[in-house]
């Protein structure tokens, strides 16, 4: 078993004449938190969409644990253990918090129609397990008291946590977080950092992170890829990235 979980090579994405992502290469190791940073419009989310199967990359290959997943539809990518959150939270707003977590377990549940109508023991067991797992995750995230509320009515910070829980309940190997700290207050950001650390430690999940909040990125990441205008500038440890003149130039402009 190789050390590399996700391997992206030569990834290019063109929208008509616009080159949104230009030959980006990186890999994410097991148990690693890997961050992609860059100014607005650098193409970070496009990379995410390509990896997650929402866009079909123009060229390049994406491998998950050695298997090629390039151009696969997103629901199949998810079954390879690669799930994501969204920049603006995408919950099933009119479903309850609990139901959000049940839907996420769809692929692991007994979905045979007849078994469900007849309530066979197998079906009951599957429902019970799903409920138990959902309860565990609600406890873990500290939002159990809201279990029966509509997800859309949760406070924003809780919505973010629920979205992460909804990903984690599918037992992913790679969790992709698209700006998870956006709109959170400093306290919540701190909790998020602890959460990401904990997820990696306890559940052995690798994290691919896009984030603008530098203190979070520097605090939580093992390695960082910096992008600017679709092109990768450098990949390195947080300390290297922080002091690299190219990165400073990309963010602050030239003197």
């Amino acid at each position, binding site marked *: 078993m190789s050390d590399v979980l996700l391997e992206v090579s030569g990834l290019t994405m063109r929208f008509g004449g616009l080159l949104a992502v230009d030959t980006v290469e990186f890999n994410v190791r097991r148990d690693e938190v890997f961050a992609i940073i860059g100014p607005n419009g650098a193409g970070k989310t496009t990379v995410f969409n390509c990896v997650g199967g929402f866009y079909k990359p123009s060229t390049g290959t994406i491998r998950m644990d050695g298997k090629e997943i390039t151009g696969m539809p997103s629901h199949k990518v998810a079954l390879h253990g690669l799930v994501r959150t969204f920049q603006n939270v995408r919950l099933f707003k009119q*479903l309850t918090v609990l139901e959000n977590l049940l839907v996420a377990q769809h692929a692991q549940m007994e979905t045979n129609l007849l078994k469900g109508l007849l309530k066979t023991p197998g079906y009951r067991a599957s429902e019970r397990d799903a409920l138990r797992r959902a309860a565990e995750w609600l406890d873990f995230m500290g939002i159990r008291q809201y279990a029966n509320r509509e997800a859309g009515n949760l406070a924003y910070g809780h919505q973010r946590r629920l979205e992460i829980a909804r990903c984690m309940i599918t037992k992913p190997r790679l969790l992709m977080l698209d700006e998870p700290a956006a709109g959170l207050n400093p306290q919540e950001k701190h909790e998020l950092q602890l959460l990401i650390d904990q997820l990696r430690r306890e559940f052995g999940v690798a994290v691919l992170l896009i984030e603008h909040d530098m203190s979070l990125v520097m605090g939580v990441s093992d390695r960082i890829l910096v992008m600017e205008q679709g092109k990768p500038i450098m990949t390195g440890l947080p300390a290297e990235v922080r002091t690299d003149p190219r990165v400073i130039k990309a963010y602050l402009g030239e003197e």
Partner: protein
Amino acid sequence: MGNHFKNALFAAIMAGIIIAPIFGVNIVRAGMQTTLQPEWGILFMGMGIVFVFQFLVRPVLAKAFARKQTRRALPVMSDRVRRGMIFLLIVIALIWPMFTGRAQVDIATLVLIYVMLGLGLNIVVGFAGLLDLGFVGFYAVGAYTYALLYHWAGWGFWEALPLAGAMSAAFGFALGFPVLRLRGDYLAIVTLGFGEIIRLLLINLYSFTGGPDGISGIPKPSVFGFPMVRRVPEGVTTFHELMGWNYSTQDVIVFLYLMALCLALVTLFVSNRVIRMPIGRAWEALREDEIACRSLGLNPTRIKLSAFTMGAMFAGFGGAFFAARQGLVNPESFTFIESALILAIVVLGGMGSQVGVILAAVVLTVVPEIAREFAEYRMLIFGLVMVLMMMWRPQGLLPVKRPQVELKT
């Protein structure tokens, strides 16, 4: 107050403009000449009524409605009480036809057909959020499946019923494929076209379906193989002979009612169970956010197809029963207005709410029957009710009550 006055004045002027061409002019014939003579009196009276209503009556009404809004939640019932209530309702529905007239039972049967159709469409529109304006197409497929099987192969109702459901489901599946990528308005248009295509096919395949004349003489369902008819060929025992009764049409009607009740209860049971199952939750999730669904590994294709297929299947059962009840099917019964009515039932009841759908089916079927004298104004009243509902209660008569699964907190 000033605002009210301005609104009322504006409404009155608008009313004047709208009613002017209808009431405001009188056609006067003098010999060869026809002239239009303005009727100022009626026009100003109309405007006056609108003004008074808007200025004086509406604030009072608004106040009354505002007060009502605070207490409109249904009383919460415990599971045992609810089960008891449902049981009681079913018992009442079972024995009720024995004590009432033929016309009432007949209308009740019609209501139950619409309940079935409404619950079927509720799966597609209410649960899965796919706007389907051609639902009547599946209803037609079910009805014609039985009619044609009888006509060409001599099948009875009971043999044909599963096949009618399966056939409609197959059509639902087939329609599902091309429309998978479509959402909202586009989906509505395609399904609308689909419903019309089915109807036009039925009209034009003259040698096969009988065209506009349809197929008649379709037999009513038998009771465990004993037909319910007055006279039968030698060697067949009819139901009333078996029971030693005299033949009466009332029995036939009650029997049809009970069958419709059975079918509607089965539909209710299935749709009620399915929405609590993973597939039902997936439908609702897909309605909320397709992209999030995909990111979690749910296959939207399969989920949409299952909703279309299951909804169509219930329409098929309803159609087969309709054919048996009428004894006659022709394309006239499957026009767009029928689709619109079924959709209205779902929307009026509260999308996704099964009890609401049942209530709306009762309202929309019984009210026109009661108001027979106003038959000419039926569509007008229908439209008015819809507009008022959408203004005051856009969520429907009985909106969905969440949650369906609960976790102790």
